[in-house]
C-alpha cells in the first residue's frame, strides 16, 4: 500500500503539501529535467478536459517520460461497455503511473484499489480535483511568500464549485480567514461552514461584492457562475453581473493582493483586469505544470 497515489487533497498532510511546494519551486526554475526517462505514464481521460490533459502531458514530456492513453472516451474500450476495472487492470500492465479523469464521482478511489501502479486523480465527476488544488496552493505560496494567516475571498459559485471546497479543506492547515461572497442560490454549503467551525477558522458570508471586502483580501478567488445551475434564468442574468470583477474595483486593494481563477472564465472577470498587477490567473494556469511535475515525481518516488 506504499503507492503514492493522489486521490483527494485530504490524502496529503501539511508536511507533504509543503514538500510538494518546494519541489514545484525547483521545477519552476528548471522545468526540463529528464527524471522520467524510461517511464511510461498513462493519461486516461474518460471525460474530455483539454486544459488539464495538456498540462499533465506537458509535465511528463518535459520530464523526459512517454505518454500513452486516450483523450476521447468514444475511442476507448469504455465505449464498447468495458468496466472501469478491466480498463485499469489492462493499463496497469503497461504504464508506471496512471493519470485519470472520469465523469463519475469516486472513480479514482476505486481505480486506486485495483491498480498495481499509482493513480493521480485528474478530476472525478463533481468530487475531487486535487492537482487543481495543489496548483492553487502553489500560486498562493508563490504570490504571498507563505500560506499562513491569509485572508482568502471566494466569489461566485460556492455551492457547486469543487475547486473552492478543496481549497478550503487544504488551507485548514494554515490558519486562513475566509470571506464567502455569493448569491443565496450559490452559497457555501453548510458542511463546509461547519468544517471551518470545527477547525476554528474564521469566516464571513456576504451577498455584497464590495470594495471593502476586496480591500481586506490577500487572495481573491473568482469562480464561474454557470448558467445551468439556475432554474430561473432571469435570476442568472441578474446574478452574473453582480459578481463581475472590474479593474476599477481594485483601486484600493492591498499591494500583495492577487486575483485567481481556475479558468475558463466567461464574464466574471472583465478583460480590463488582465492589465492590472493583481491579475494572476494565467500564471496560475502555468503553475499547474510545476505542481503536476512535483506530484508525478512524488507518485513515482523520484
Amino acid at each position, binding site marked *: 500500500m506504499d503507492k503514492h497515489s493522489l486521490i483527494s487533497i485530504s490524502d496529503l498532510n501539511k508536511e507533504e503539501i509543503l514538500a510538494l511546494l518546494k519541489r514545484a519551486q525547483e521545477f519552476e526554475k528548471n522545468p526540463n529535467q529528464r527524471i522520467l526517462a524510461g517511464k511510461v505514464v498513462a493519461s486516461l481521460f474518460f471525460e474530455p478536459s483539454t486544459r488539464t490533459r495538456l498540462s499533465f502531458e506537458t509535465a511528463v514530456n518535459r520530464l523526459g517520460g512517454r505518454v500513452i492513453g486516450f483523450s476521447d472516451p468514444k475511442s476507448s474500450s469504455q465505449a464498447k461497455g468495458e*468496466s472501469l*476495472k478491466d480498463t485499469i487492470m489492462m493499463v496497469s500492465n503497461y504504464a508506471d503511473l496512471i493519470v485519470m479523469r472520469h465523469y*463519475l*464521482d*469516486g*472513480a479514482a*478511489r476505486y481505480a486506486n484499489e485495483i491498480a498495481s501502479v499509482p493513480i493521480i486523480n485528474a478530476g472525478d465527476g*463533481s*468530487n475531487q480535483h486535487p492537482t487543481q488544488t495543489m496548483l492553487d496552493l502553489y500560486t498562493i505560496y508563490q504570490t504571498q511568500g507563505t500560506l499562513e494567516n491569509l485572508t482568502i475571498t471566494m466569489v461566485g459559485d460556492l455551492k457547486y464549485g469543487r475547486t473552492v471546497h478543496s481549497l478550503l479543506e487544504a488551507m485548514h492547515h494554515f490558519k486562513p480567514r475566509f470571506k464567502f461572497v455569493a448569491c443565496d442560490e450559490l452559497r457555501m454549503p453548510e458542511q463546509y461552514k461547519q468544517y471551518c467551525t470545527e477547525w476554528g477558522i474564521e469566516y464571513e458570508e456576504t451577498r455584497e461584492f464590495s470594495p471593502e471586502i476586496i480591500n481586506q483580501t490577500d487572495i481573491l478567488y473568482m469562480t464561474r457562475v454557470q448558467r445551468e445551475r439556475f432554474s430561473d434564468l432571469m435570476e442568472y442574468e441578474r446574478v452574473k453581473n453582480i459578481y463581475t470583477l472590474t479593474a476599477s474595483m481594485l483601486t484600493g486593494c492591498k499591494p500583495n493582493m492577487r486575483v485567481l481563477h481556475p479558468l475558463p472564465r466567461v464574464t466574471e472577470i472583465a478583460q480590463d483586469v488582465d492589465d492590472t498587477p493583481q491579475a494572476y490567473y494565467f500564471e496560475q494556469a502555468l503553475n499547474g505544470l510545476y505542481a503536476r511535475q512535483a506530484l508525478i515525481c512524488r507518485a513515482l518516488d523520484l
Partner: protein
Amino acid sequence: MVNKEKKELAVAALQNGTVIDHIPTQSLFKVVDLLGLKDLTDVSVTIGNNLDSNRMVKKGIIKVADLFFPEETLNRIAVIAPNVVVNIIRDFEVVEKLHVALPDELIDIVKCNNPKCITNNEPMRTHFHVIDREHTTLRCHYCERPVFQHDITLK
C-alpha cells in the same frame, strides 16, 4: 396484562435460537432483508410487528429458531435500528442479551444515494465510513458524500 403474558409465552416457546426485540416498526422489514430471512428454508422464523411495548409504544420482533448469527451480522442491524436487543436462547432460557454496535466501516450493506457515484455504475461493493455515531451519519468511501440516517437505503 393479558398481552404481556402472551408475549412472554411466545418468546419462551423458542427452545434454541435468536430473538431480535425492540425493533422500530418502520424498520422491521428492513431488518428481515438485512438478515436474509427470506432465503431461510429449513428453520422456523416468526415475525411480529406493531406489538405493544412498554419501552417504545409499538415494536417489531423477530424470532429465528436454531440459528445464531455472527456478531458482525448482528451489528449491521445497528445501521437501521441502533437500539434493538438481541436475545440468545438456549434450552428455553435467555443466556445472553446483546446490544448491537454500529461498526466503523460498512462494507456492501448500504447503497450510495448519489446516482453519479462509481458504486452505482460498476459491479462493485459499497463502502461507508461512520462519521457520526450518535446520529448515524455515514460517508461514502468513494464519492465522499454524506448519507444521513433518514436517507439510508440498504443494498
